[in-house]
């Protein structure tokens, strides 16, 4: 067993994997160790480790499909420790194993594991884009608004996802704090810092009251479907969503509200249109039906304009419905 030490990120894995592929080291018998399993001392050596330094000898090329590298970049963000080994195994099969078709084979068990991990990471990134909630903490002297959010991602996705926020919220200053890593934007560049505790994050924002009102009122109590909601917004996210505390009560009251509406006697008094003048002209009179044969017999005597006017009104065959 040879132990390969890397940092827990894609770049570090990529450098090592490339070197091993060039040297034709098969995946069996390699143990990938990224220091995240608690053995801190490993990290100490790593910084001085010779193989981390850029190699001065020119290495021959190994050609790996770009699709695989994209997949690997996502898989690298997953927290499962076996990922480095499986990534290397698939990289090996694609190159030395000559299984170029592997990426198309969604039923291969190695590839399927990578795909599943990548999906979990994709989903986590998507939920981060969705569920981060900024709270305003002030304005700078130059008038830029400053915001801070607290979020708890499942995987190491902060670096990969922060550029999305930088492009969307370029004109504000913001930080996204998480337990593992924090991202900061000042209008110029993205910075990353180690994770912090949730106590560092602001506790409220004035607008949250409005947001909660909106949430409570855009909900239609006649269509309660909690399962559908939870499958998209799992409970683990609720504690950081300002609107989530409303869910229980909205749900409880939903049945009663709907019942009230349905059972309320339909009062004819409620329907008062006769008493209120409409103020709008009623719609176009139904177009005169045009009888094609009749029109044709008179066509000689009509102007083009009249004819096209009649054409618009013709409903003699079902085609009129599709005319634009």
């Amino acid at each position, binding site marked *: 067993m040879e132990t390969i030490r890397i940092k827990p990120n894609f770049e570090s894995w990529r450098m090592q994997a490339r070197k091993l592929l060039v040297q034709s080291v098969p995946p069996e018998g390699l143990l990938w160790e990224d220091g995240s399993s608690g053995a801190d001392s490993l990290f100490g050596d790593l910084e001085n480790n010779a193989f981390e330094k850029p190699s001065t000898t020119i290495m021959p090329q190994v050609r790996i499909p770009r699709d695989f590298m994209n997949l690997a970049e996502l898989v690298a963000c997953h927290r499962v420790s076996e990922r480095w080994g499986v990534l290397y195994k698939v990289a090996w099969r694609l190159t030395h194993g000559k299984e170029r078709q592997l990426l198309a084979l969604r039923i291969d068990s190695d590839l399927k594991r990578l795909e599943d991990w990548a999906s979990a990471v994709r989903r986590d990134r998507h939920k981060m884009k969705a569920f981060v909630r900024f709270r305003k903490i002030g304005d700078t002297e130059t008038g830029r608004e400053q915001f801070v959010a607290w979020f708890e991602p499942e995987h190491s996705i902060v670096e990969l996802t922060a550029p999305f926020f930088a*492009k969307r919220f370029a004109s504000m200053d913001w930080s996204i704090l998480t337990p593992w890593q924090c991202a900061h934007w000042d209008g110029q560049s993205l910075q990353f810092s180690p994770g912090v505790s949730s106590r560092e994050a602001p506790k409220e924002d004035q607008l949250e009251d409005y947001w909660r009102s909106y949430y409570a*009122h855009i909900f*239609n109590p006649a269509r309660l479907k909690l399962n559908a*909601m939870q499958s998209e917004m799992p409970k683990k996210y609720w504690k950081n969503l300002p609107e989530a505390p409303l869910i229980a009560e909205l749900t409880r009251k939903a049945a009663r509200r709907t019942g009230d509406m349905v059972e309320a006697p339909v009062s004819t008094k*409620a329907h008062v249109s006769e008493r209120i003048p409409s103020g709008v002209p009623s719609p176009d009179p139904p177009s005169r039906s045009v009888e094609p044969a009749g029109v044709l017999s008179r066509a000689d005597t009509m102007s083009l304009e009249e004819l096209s006017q009649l054409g618009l009104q013709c409903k003699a065959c079902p085609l009129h419905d599709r*005319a634009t």
Partner: protein
Amino acid sequence: MELKNKLEILADAAKYDASCASSGTTKRDSAGSATALGSSGGAGICHSYAPDGRCISLLKVLLTNACIYDCHYCINRRSSDVQRARFSVAEVVQLTLDFYKRNYIEGLFLSSGIVRNPDYTMERVVEVARQLRVDHDFRGYIHLKTIPEASQELIDQAGEYADRISINIELASQQSLDRLAPEKNMSRTQKAMGGIRTRIETDSERRKADRQSGKRRTKKDRHFAPAGQSTQMIVGADASPDRQLLDRADVLYGAYHLKRVYYSAFSPIPSASPILPLKSPPLVREHRLYQSDWLMRFYGYSVEEIAPDSAPNLDLDIDPKLSWALRSRETFPVDVNQAPRELLLRIPGIGVRSVTRILQIRRWSALRLEDLQKLGISLKKCLPFVITTDHNPARLGLDSDRLRSRFAPGPQQTEFTFTVADAKSSAITGEV
């Protein structure tokens, strides 16, 4: 009235519009700008989910819920005794920006009850969008509801600022409109949709020509409604069978190139009009319509195949694809290792994505049942309809009636078939 009160009333008034999509528009962001706000493009993001399972992606409000029209199914009709409120243009603009900066929303979906006259109303709706885009350089998503009776000039402006514009068709026929929405007129609505379609196409041709001749785009040159137009049909407020709704949808997709038709099961509203049915239709009907719509757009089914004259209403117990398969037993079994794409798409339980994967995989190796399972396909559903290297259902000798009873839930369950697994793929995708 307090702003918060207005927000409550005007969100309440807007919730019967099913659309909350923020996808499919041009890709843009505010990188490199010290003043612009927002980005869009791609799949759109649902920032929250309400307990009704619906995605909350946009701030969806009415500018005012006062209305001079009297559509019986609508809580805002002039004869309803609902409390009325009205936002100022500045209030909606500010709320949108404030919500957006906190990452609550992707943008704004604005519509309005009709006050004074259509142009007056439309002018104010357009002004909100103009201020967002021009004064605040807002690059998030904007969906504007337009009024067919508004002048062409205003609709043109709406399309210039909005990503998507929509006009609700409401009901499938003029007869139904006459009864339930007396001021509305089908041919006028379709004519307005035709106008929008022409405008969208002219715009994209112009842009294409500009690109080819290497003409540079200026900032003022805005794409006309890049996410296209959509509409909504109300289900169950009138007696129209599903066939009629789907026929109407087919016309809208075919002749007006709509991006989406939304179906909204008519829902009990406070102070309901006496001429409405007392009971709302089962939600599963709406779900079956979405599935059918999906089959028409992505699977190559015709309306006649989905809802034949002999069965103009969709089967609520089983999905429309399975229904068709049971009516078309002679087409099956289909060999997943041989059949062309169009035929693979017809197998119950196998979706578009799985079909693409099957086609990829079978170039390299023949598929077995176990492989289908690995692709996440439910064997229970497709087993009677497929041939794989290790499975041929011919010997099962199942006829359609017996098969149907195998798939349909017991009668008492009908209303509850719409469960998690169903819902996940449903309202959002409709994939079957």
